[in-house]
Structure formats: structure tokens, C-alpha cells
């Protein structure tokens, strides 16, 4: 193992802000994309399902 302690790992040789700022924003954006994707899928399905019901009601005599 390269690191002697957790604090040494977090400090990243004094460059912690840059390293964790990179990985934090990068992984955060990936998590955000996954969340947005899932939310959009759900809302899209609800909308399509609702549209379908409305169209079926309209078609009925």
C-alpha cells in the first residue's frame, strides 16, 4: 500500500483540493446524469401512458 494513513491519502501530497475537486465533480456529474435519466424515463412513461388513455377515450363513440 502506497499510503501510510487516511489523512495522508486525503491530503494527496498537498494537492487534495485539485484531486478531489476533479473526482468529486466528475463522479457527481455521472451520478446526476444517472438520476436525471431515470427521472426522465419515469416521467416520459407516465406521459405516454396518459396520452394513450386520452386517445383511447377520444376514439370511443
Amino acid at each position, binding site marked *: *500500500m*502506497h*499510503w501510510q494513513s487516511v489523512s495522508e*491519502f486525503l491530503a*494527496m*501530497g*498537498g*494537492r487534495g483540493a*485539485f*484531486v478531489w*475537486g*476533479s*473526482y468529486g*465533480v*466528475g463522479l457527481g*456529474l*455521472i451520478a446526476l*446524469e*444517472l438520476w436525471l*435519466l*431515470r427521472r*426522465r*424515463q*419515469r416521467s*416520459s*412513461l*407516465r406521459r*405516454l*401512458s396518459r*396520452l*394513450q388513455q386520452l386517445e383511447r377515450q377520444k376514439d370511443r363513440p
Partner: protein
Amino acid sequence: MNFFRFSSPQTFYPLAGRLVPLFAALAAACAVAGLYIGFFVAPSDAVQGEVYRIIHLHVAAAWMSMFIYLVMAFWSAVGLGLGTRLSFYMTQALAPTGAMFCFIALWTGALWGRPTWGAYWVWDARLTSQLLLLFLYFGFIALTRAIDDPRRADKAGAIIALVGAVNVPIIYFSVTWWNTLHQGASVKPGGSSMASVMLWAMLLCALAAWFYSLAVSLARARRIILERERHTEWAAAEIARRGAGGRAD
């Protein structure tokens, strides 16, 4: 096997549904392995110290942002040439992920540049052309969403994707063509100038980015397919089935 069978949205939709969890699992496995090697196995760099560990994410994101744009241009050419609707759906499914990786590449590059070069940003050819790529992604997304008629939006987006693709070789070769502050390629076809353990971390992160992009774009393509094909019999049946069950997968 007839690959053209999968150019129909109806046959592609269930195939994509089966591939999404597979690619997602591969992405997670590669990311965990890559980050573990990158943070715990790879030694510090003799010149840069610890800050070089940013490059594992930076290079993976930068490669992916360029590659996704080329794939978008490819699907646009296929869509315009053959008139296949699925090609345009794929182009639109890829764009947000490409834009995200492009932003990550610029962001991590800036945070690496400050301690290494002494500046977050310089207007050198590599950085400027990568910033242009981000604007091309934004332009593509804005244009395809601004046009109401989806078929016209498809064609307009395809033209941006094709024209903008000229920028990708400019980004890639900028470090050779011009005297840039950004370093030359460390990994080229036929050889690498990096220590092998660092290279492994980077390649695993790049693989993770590949699988992630595949999983996310296929999942997004499935939503676009249902929205655009909702008046076809099979899509209506699928909407009725999933809408009733409330399943989001």
C-alpha cells in the same frame, strides 16, 4: 446473423433493454478496478507528485468525449444516407453523455493545470478545440430540442454532428500540429511512454467510460424510441404494459 434486423426500432428496443444492465455492470467493475489501481497501487509520479492521479479520469473523459462525437457523426451519416430513424435516435441518445464527458475533461484538465502549469486555463490549440467541442455538443442538443418537427430536428442535428466532426481530428492532432502547452500523446497506437501500472489504471477507467456510455445511451435510446414510435402497434403495447405496471426499467 442479420445485423440489419436490429436497425428496426422494434427489434432494437428489447435488445438494448437486455444490454443495459450488462454494460452497466461492466462499467462499474472497470471503474472500481481502475480507481483502485489509480489510487492505491500506482506510485506517485516522480515529477508531478500525487496530482497526476487526475489524469486517469481526465484522459478517459477526453477520449470518450471525442469518440462519442465521432459515433454521433457516423450515425448521422447513416441516418441521412439510408433514412434509418434509429440512427437519429442513437445520435440524440449519445449527445448528453458526450457533453458531460467533454465538460469533465475540461474541468479535470483545469484542476490539473493549476498546480502543474500554474494556470487553470490557457488558450492553446488543444484546450480551445476541446472547448469548441463542448459548444458543438451544446449546439447539437439545443438545436434538436428547439425544432418542433422531430424529423427536421433529426436532419438539422445530423448536419451539426457531421460538420462538427471536423473538429475531432483537430483536437487529437493539435498537440502535434501546433506548439501547445498541453503535452503530446502519452498513449499512441504502437506504444506508450507511461509506467505500466499507471497505464492500466487509465485504460480501465477508459473502458469504464466506454461501458458507461453504452449503458446510458442505450437506456436513453429506449426512451426516445418509445416516445417517437408510440403510434406503432408494438410501442403502444409496450407503453400500455409498462405504464400499467409502473415499471421504470
